[in-house]
């Protein structure tokens, strides 16, 4: 019983701060469960970094930088980039779209369409709008919703393990 109460305590502590801490870890963990199509630059020396981009207001603060510090995928270092405008977006692999960009989601998605970019956001209805991964909260826990059609369109392969722990949706037919 002591263990159970300590478990509850861990999950109950400071929900706001730990929410983005957790999301930062999740964002980083996606690197392990998603395969990007081979790119022209990936075998060059030195290996190109794997880029995690944040578009709009950065809700993570230092958490994300701390999480990815020193981490690599194979030989590729993992780096965080922050963008203010759609035009700034370069060849990033993961693009986190901040809630501040909620109004422009369709525009942003259109901009990265057909490019191997894993789009992530915690904005409501992101997945159904064509985003690939959406964070949502269920019973006080952060869950993942994945739009498989969007992932396929982006030529990304998502590990079945990730699919196991996620809620899978399809793009609604117009």
């Amino acid at each position, binding site marked *: 019983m002591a263990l159970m109460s*300590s478990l509850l305590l861990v999950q109950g502590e400071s929900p706001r701060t730990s929410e983005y801490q957790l999301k930062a870890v999740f964002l980083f963990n996606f690197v392990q469960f998603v395969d990007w199509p081979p790119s022209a630059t990936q075998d060059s020396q030195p290996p190109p970094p794997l880029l995690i981009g944040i578009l709009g207001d950065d809700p993570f603060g230092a958490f994300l930088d701390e999480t990815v510090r020193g981490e690599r995928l194979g030989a590729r270092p993992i780096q965080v980039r922050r963008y203010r405008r759609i035009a700034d977006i370069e060849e990033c692999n993961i693009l986190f779209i901040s809630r501040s960009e909620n109004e422009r989601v369709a525009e942003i998605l259109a901009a990265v369409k057909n490019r191997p970019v894993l789009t992530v956001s915690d904005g409501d209805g992101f997945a159904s709008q064509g985003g690939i991964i959406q964070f949502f909260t269920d019973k006080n826990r952060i869950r993942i919703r994945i739009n498989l059609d969007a992932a396929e369109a982006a030529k990304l392969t998502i590990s079945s*393990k*990730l699919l196991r722990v996620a809620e899978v949706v399809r793009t609604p037919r117009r």
Partner: protein
Amino acid sequence: MAIRDWPIKRKLTAILLLISGLVLLLTSAAFVTYEIVTFRQTIRSQLATRSRILAANSTAALAFANEADAREILGALKYDPHMVAAALYDRNGRILATYPAAPSADLIPAAPQPDGYRFEGGHLVGFTPVAQGENQRLGTLYIASDTKAVSDALRLSGVIAIVVLAIAMLAAYALAAALQGRISAPILALAETATAASTRQDYSLRAPKFGHDELGVLTGSFNQMLGRIEEQKQELQQHATRLEQRVAERTKELERRALELQAANSELDAFAYSVSHDLRAPLRSIDGFSQVLLEDYGAQLDEGGRDSLQRVRAASQRMATLIDDLLKLARVTRTEMRTERVDLSGMAREIVLDIQRTAPDRQVEFAIAPGLEAQGDSRLLRVVLDNLLRNGWKYTGKQAQPRVEFTAVDENGGRVFVVKDNGAGFDMKYADKLFGVFQRLHSITEFEGTGVGLATVRRIINRHGGRIWAEGIVDQGATFYFTL
């Protein structure tokens, strides 16, 4: 019974059983130990494999903190009843999910421990890293398995070991019982033969030989020894038989000689008797006619003629005495013995009185011990005492204070009678001639006598089964000892 007193059979069996038992025990122990060690290794690697599979499956659940999924993955452990508990820790060491869903507190450590698999407090526990990709550590999987499988394996291999041990010991016992005979049988046979030979003294026995090993050599030597003893025993018996034969032969010869001697002696006695007897008649004529000549014609003879006649008479009288003595000697051997109790002291006193009556002018001191008695023929014993006492009286004739004793001493359980005088004595180198017929140590002019007396005495003593001997010193006296 002390071990050293056990029969060889039992000793051999015990040694064989002890050795095989020890070997089997060590082998069984090694077998059980090997079983346990390999089994522990096996279940440890099984747990490691299972842990790695589970860890690989639970990466996403850990990566995205999906508690339900994690619980579901761990829940699969229920298909293995040996799995006691399991837990998934996240990167920060916090528990994400447990198996069973509500475990008792002491089964799940609060924080992950170093990776690895170890036996701990009756459980096999393992901490496995959960990682996706190369070095992406997501957390830790903990699994605890009970060691019932190990104890089951231990029990099984123990039972197998005990069964094998029991069967092997039975086989070893049977083999030992069958094979110990190879060694013990020759020894037992040897011991049996030795016992039989020594108790029955039968040296014709032979121990059976079983082979040409050391025991065979021993048996051979033993049999040879028996053979040698047998031969020697036979030789000894032959010698004894030969010796007995010779003794018997000698005895027969001696008996024959004795008979011959006896015959010769009695012939001689008869001769002496008849000669003496026949000599007396002419001698009486010589003496009688000499007396007639002296009385009737003495006046017509001169002095020389009368003296010659006197000498003829004296010589013929002495010859008569001699013949009488010889007859007496012969009679001693011819007369029959009548044994009775004889009062020697009284008899000696009578003889002394008789001696003193015939020569009242001589003063000789006689000392006769009272109460001397003996078993024998009184007539013959009187001859003995008469001779010895008269000899003492006679040979003290030149002594100033003559003295003759008759006593007895007890020597070696027998009675020895002693007649002792202080007279002329004799030289000890003539001691063996003393008792011969006609043997005289003094001339007739010194002391008169015929030389037959002591010979007679010895014959009488011999007829009584006794012995007579003498000691003497010249001029200091003689002592005669006799037994009856």
